[in-house]
């Protein structure tokens, strides 16, 4: 028990210096047509990237992606941002992700994390989870949960990244 506690305090300290350097872990997930995709390949030519972890059964996740969908065209035009929507749906529902996404008319790049490997590697407990990568692929902002309006904050972060 004490060892574990030591471990916590130690890692908590260490993390502080490292945090701003963190990049996405390299994990094999899938594209909608069943090809293997490595998350290290999430890139946008030096422009910011939004990564969202969601699921077809998660209501707030969908609400968040729908809210962004309404603004997405404008965002892309102004900042060149790209959104990767990674569905953690498992085998039961993963086949329904593509029709769902098309049904909603989303323009995002949608990926499948069927085995939750990426979710685990990102230490994500619950969806919705969202993070923003700067042009170098470093995680500069992360957030769990969704409240209507929080997409505004996402946009603020992206704009600040582009200005830099």
């Amino acid at each position, binding site marked *: 028990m004490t060892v574990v506690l030591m471990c916590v305090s130690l890692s908590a300290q260490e993390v502080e210096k490292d945090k701003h350097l963190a990049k996405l872990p390299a994990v094999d997930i899938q594209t909608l*047509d069943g090809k293997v995709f490595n998350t290290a390949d999430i890139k946008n030519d030096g422009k910011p990237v939004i990564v969202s972890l969601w699921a077809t059964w998660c209501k707030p996740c969908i609400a968040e992606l729908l809210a962004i969908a309404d603004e997405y065209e404008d965002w892309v035009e102004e900042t060149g941002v790209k959104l990767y929507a990674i569905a953690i749906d498992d*085998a039961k529902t993963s086949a329904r992700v593509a029709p769902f996404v*098309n049904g909603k008319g989303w323009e995002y790049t949608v990926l499948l994390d069927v085995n939750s490997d990426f979710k685990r590697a990102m230490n994500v407990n619950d969806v919705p989870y969202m993070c923003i990568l700067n042009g170098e692929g470093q995680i500069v902002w992360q*957030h769990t949960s969704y409240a*209507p309006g929080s997409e505004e904050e996402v946009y603020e972060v992206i704009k600040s990244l582009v200005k830099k």
Partner: protein
Amino acid sequence: MKKLLLLPVLCLLALSTFAQHQLGNSRISGDFGFNGMYYIPDSLIGAEKVDSKVRANAFLNLLYSNGGFSAGMRYEFYMFPLIDFEKINYKGQGVRYFFADYKNKFIQVTAGNFYDQFGNGLTLRAYEDRQLGIDNSLLGARVKVTPYKGVYLKGVWGVERLNFDSYIGRQDYVRGLDAELSFGEMFEKVQEAGFTANVGASFVSKFEKADEEINVSLYPGTDSATTGVIAVDKIPQNVATWATRMSFGYKGFRLDGEYAQKMQDPNVTNDFIYKKGDALFLSATYSMKGLGVAASFIRADNMDYRTQRMQKTNSLLYINNIPAINRQYSYQLISNYSFASQPNSQIGVQLQVNYQIPKKTKLGGKYGTDLTFNFSRFHNTDQQPVALAVDYGTLSGTEGYTSSFFKFGPDLLYQDIGFEISHRFTKQWKWILAYNYITYNLEKLQGHEGMMRGHLVASDLQWKVTTKHSLRLELQHLYTKDDKGSWIYGMLEYAISPKWFISIGDQYNYGNTNPEMRLHYFNIAGAFVWNTTRIALNFGKTQEGILCIGGVCRAVPASYGAGLSVTTSF
């Protein structure tokens, strides 16, 4: 054993210190979760007095990574777990998950605990669901090889986790092989033509020592006292499953299929029959901008596949997972009537259509209108007892039954006809309205009597007052004459983006045939979110029922009290 389990912690600690000082590329991350509750007894709703009023689940994940190398562990403290976890015996503390993993372009090697899935999971699916208390990770080793482009091979060997039991003395293990070919990746011409085509095959085998004969009561339900015995040498120690699968895609069209078969596996869930099990999963989807159609079919018969033949607790020791293909809802009032996948007997279909009325049209409005239609229907499989089973008055110790493959069995298990419309009127106002007609077989799925037939109307209205402040009102009405009768539910949520949430809700069983049981289940909740940290408080009552996530369900006892939950990642 305790020392042994601390070993990975020490390893990680040493590694991390080493890494921090020696290598620039290393990274430590982790997450922490705490879920506690103070219980108040309430005899009316059936919340029993618990021996320890304050209970909590807590865990800490640590993950170290450096280039292709990663290692991690989870410490769990469930000594006084929440009562629903206590009920499924998820109780204890310690490290039951740790691993080290190395990966490059050609090979990935994992030692320790791992999660994995072959195909759609019909033969193997090691996964976790923390809310349900399911952790089927395997402790052992895994190798993944990519010898050529588009060729994926996997081999696994491991002992399956069983709550907080130490792995010592276990006499069962799982081994498996999986191969997948992706023609799109192997041949550029296929990809250029716009096709994707994958085929795969898997083979899984479990070993469990057989050292005790199985006693069977013949003619159960009659006055006969005759018993029978299945001798030790008649119990298979190695039980295999195999499956083949394919998927094919062209433009917006995609077809998936997998067929699996399980060899002789007499176990407590199938009444010790020697029939082979089989499962077929088919899914066809078509989508284009604004339209998505998904149809799927599943048949599973005698496919409950676990590492221990005497295990029947709902969530424990599954090797495979038969998907419940029905649409999953998060509506409060029908959470108790969620279909749970029946690996030993289910045949069913599911159809879902999503359509978006285009933006800037008369019906679509400025933002478009989303329509969703859903239909699903599940029966048990056709089962005709073999002559010997009729003779013995029991299926046990016989070939069990014969089954006509595509025939729907006599019992309807679940049916759902649903329609949902979602429309944004203005930037501020959004409304989702849903109607569902649900038929749920209480007898087969919950062991109570009869069928539940209910109409659910659900409304979800959102008002974004300002950019930071929003209100959400959820109203639901379940109209039924069956089971506990009709319910009504209301919930108002106020959110100050992005940090604060407050909600107040009440669920009222106004239609209960027993006037004394027309109870209210109120709930007040608040949450604070700061980046990846979420702190939530709630106070209220929960009705006795079923919690289902993705077609996997477990019982939840009634409870009343105050809860605190904290999750964070770093």
